[in-house]
């Protein structure tokens, strides 16, 4: 550990805006997902991995030209979902038609971080994942401020 040349006065302080509480949310949202690419995908659930530290669920959705797209979505861990009304093997099961909102994977694959799921079978809408920017330090860079 040593001082680096670009940072001269000792009075410089870094303000990690919004990040102070982000460390406990999604590990690093921005490393995987693009907060500027909101998506809404409707499809049929094919598989659910009800696992820690995140759940994953898979949808078959119809693309613009009619082809089937296989989507993979990430969500909160089971414990967090359970406390906000989700029940394993009840709330979402293979065959359900759902509409997912969230943010797309950085590499443009059919993958995303889910935020909310709406169920066609009963119209129910449930939160399923964190807001964009968690673990990304928000959209603002850390500000350098005078102490």
């Amino acid at each position: 550990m040593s001082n680096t040349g670009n940072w001269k006065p000792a009075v410089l302080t870094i303000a990690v805006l919004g990040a102070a509480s982000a460390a406990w949310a999604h590990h690093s949202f921005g490393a995987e997902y693009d907060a500027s690419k909101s998506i809404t995908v409707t499809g049929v659930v094919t598989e659910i991995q009800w696992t820690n530290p995140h759940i994953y669920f898979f949808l078959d959705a119809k693309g613009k030209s009619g082809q089937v797209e296989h989507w993979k979505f990430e969500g909160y861990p089971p414990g967090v979902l359970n406390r906000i009304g989700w029940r394993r093997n009840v709330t979402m099961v293979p065959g359900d038609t759902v509409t997912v909102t969230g943010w797309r994977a950085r590499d443009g694959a059919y993958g995303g971080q889910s935020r909310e799921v709406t169920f066609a079978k009963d119209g129910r809408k449930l939160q399923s994942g964190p807001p964009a920017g968690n673990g990304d330090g928000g959209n603002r860079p850390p500000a350098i401020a005078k102490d």
Partner: protein
Amino acid sequence: MPRYLDTVLTLAAIFALASCQRAVSRNQPADRNGVPRTADGKPDFTGVWQPGSDRPGTWEEANQGNGVPDPGTGSRARKAEPIPYQPWAAAKVLESYNRRYVDNPVARCIPQLDLGGGALYPNQFVQTPKAIVILIESRHVYRLIPLDEKHPDDLDPSYLGDSVGHWEGDTLVVDVTGFKEQMAGSEIHSDQWHIVERLTRVDYNTIDYQATLEDPKALTRPWHVTSKYMLRPGTRLQEHVCEENNQDPTSFAVMMKKGLVTRK
């Protein structure tokens, strides 16, 4: 002595012991602020709590509307000053930010203290006259806080540090030291990290939380955090084995390889 007398005497002894035990462990009535008291007169922290919230009620009641608090926008109750990093440490955090925190140890399931944040997960306090134990759902870890004891002389550095506590009036003061250094992620610290936490149950629903954090190697001055823990009746801690299906390191590696992570 007839056999039945033997039995009667044994039963009498058991009853006497049981009622004696009850008398010893019987809690005192709540004080005028509604704070329950243990048999030895201390505020009773026993219960399941949500850190970083200021809304009373059950988990569902308190987290309605937005489901769960939005940690990325800062939890409602947790307030922290900008961290007064020394320049080299500030540079380190900026470097980590520019790599979108791919190196954050939590992405490898490494636990960390919640410091009044982490509102997605409940903590359960278990209190005895000699120790307070905090069971932490997130990453399925615990903190053992012996009361009126010193830190061991031969501390091995650890992720959650070594905690010892004592009562100052109605406030539980916890001294935490003996950390491993953390040099990547949105917050970093050296092995000289030292935390003093002050927890005060101010009413039936609320623990006020204050922490002062010092790090002579990485900070220019002490850093302060305040927050609240709210009682969550009926909430049960669940298993959170982070290693079960942690796909993050692999996904991050794929994105890094494609050159999509580093900020330009």
